[in-house]
């Protein structure tokens, strides 16, 4: 669990600026949601939190991102190490289709090497339990991950992210490809995960932010317009632009 602090964070794709001087703090044991219209920069924001943004050709970042005070953009920091410490779950469930359920769960751990079969099995079970999937797949551990339902596949991806014991969990629209029941299941899971992780979630679904997040940030045109306790943002936002967005006065 780490406290994430971004200050004066700006990001570009070539000459196009996608984020402007964003300041945010994501507290441990809390869920922070980022909302805003398509193309506002919310996904870019969380991709700056694990140094994935710079993987895009021509992309660059200025400003600071601190994990418990440590600057993850400092010259001596290895971005691969950062990505290991920060788990990421994507919009579309992306298990390795031919790998078994168990192998999917421990895929990240395997990359690190050094673990024997029994230990991998044990860590896989722990991760699948943490992702709320164990009871559904314990008899199917040797089946291909692609056999699972969409919601189960997404929880398998969460298990894969948790298996490497990250400090932070970033979720980019984790439910947008899921049916309502699977969505609620993931939301319940997020609530459980926050006891042990710093969670940052990007969502198009404002009600999802209202349900799962302790803090919500509204991003518009690359700017963090408002960052407030979720209840405040959805009952009496300070900024007129936030008010107009959450009440659907512009989309």
């Amino acid at each position, binding site marked *: 669990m780490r406290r994430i602090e971004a200050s004066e964070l700006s990001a570009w794709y070539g000459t196009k600026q996608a984020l402007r001087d964003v300041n945010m703090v994501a507290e441990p044991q809390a869920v922070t949601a980022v909302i805003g219209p398509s193309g506002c920069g919310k996904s870019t924001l969380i991709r700056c939190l694990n140094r994935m943004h710079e993987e895009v050709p021509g992309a660059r970042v200025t400003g600071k991102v601190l994990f418990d005070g440590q600057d993850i953009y400092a010259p001596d920091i290895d971005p691969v190490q950062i990505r290991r410490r920060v788990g990421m779950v994507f919009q579309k469930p992306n298990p390795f289709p031919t790998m078994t359920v168990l192998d999917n769960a421990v895929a990240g751990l395997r990359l690190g090497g050094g673990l024997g079969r029994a230990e991998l099995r044990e860590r896989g079970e722990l991760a699948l339990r943490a992702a709320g999937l164990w009871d559904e797949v314990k008899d199917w551990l040797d089946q291909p991950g692609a056999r699972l339902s969409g919601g189960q596949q997404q929880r398998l991806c969460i298990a894969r992210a948790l298996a490497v014991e990250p400090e932070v969990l970033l979720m980019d629209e984790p439910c947008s490809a899921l049916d309502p029941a699977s969505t609620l299941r993931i939301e319940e899971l997020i609530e459980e995960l926050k006891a042990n992780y710093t969670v940052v979630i990007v969502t198009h679904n404002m009600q999802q932010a209202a349900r799962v997040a302790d803090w919500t940030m509204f991003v518009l045109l690359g700017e963090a317009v408002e960052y407030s306790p979720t209840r405040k943002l959805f009952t*009496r936002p300070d900024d007129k632009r936030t008010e107009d967005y959450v*009440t659907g*006065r512009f989309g």
Partner: protein
Amino acid sequence: MLETRKRFHDELAALESEILGLGERAQRAVERAVHALVHKDAREADAVVAGDDALDATYLDVEQRILSLLATQTPVASDLRLVSAILHANLHLERVGDQAVNIAKIAKVTMDLPTSQTVVSHLEEMGELVGAMLRTALDAFARRDADLAQTLQAMDEPVDRLNRNMYREVAALASDPHALEWGIRMNVVARQLERVGDHAVDIGEQVAFLLTGEFREFTDASHPTSPLKA
């Protein structure tokens, strides 16, 4: 900017005009009930009682439509506060209508009893005061005027004072059993009018909530700040 929830916002605006209309009708019912009492006008009293069904129908209609918005539209921010304020004001105004009916019924049963001019003129005054309070509350709602809403607290003080003094005026009628029976019923009328004033203040509090997002009572009966409230 593209308005993305036009139907929802149109319905919300329609509901607001429903309760403002309900408020006007409830306020008129109170005035007519007091008029019936003061002028011993049985037909007017009957009309107030009969007219309450229409007020109740509006109340139920608004309640159902608000529930439907909550179920289907998940209102947030100022929309959520407006939904909540309409829901509360709706209930207060329905109660005002009921209080007008109570006064009208008392007007009917006391028609043949002797009266006291002092008591009657005080009730008439209370009726005028609470009518003005209801109009103020509805204006403040419609105009989103927090300062106007705040004036309701001061407007309520003479109403409370007249209500508190009523029992002494009634006690003075004790020598004549018929006058006393009338007086006891008039004490109930005063209480009804005092409640109407309180409903107006409560609607004013909803206006303040709508504008600020913070709910607080203008006055707190259990922690009075004014010596008049003691």
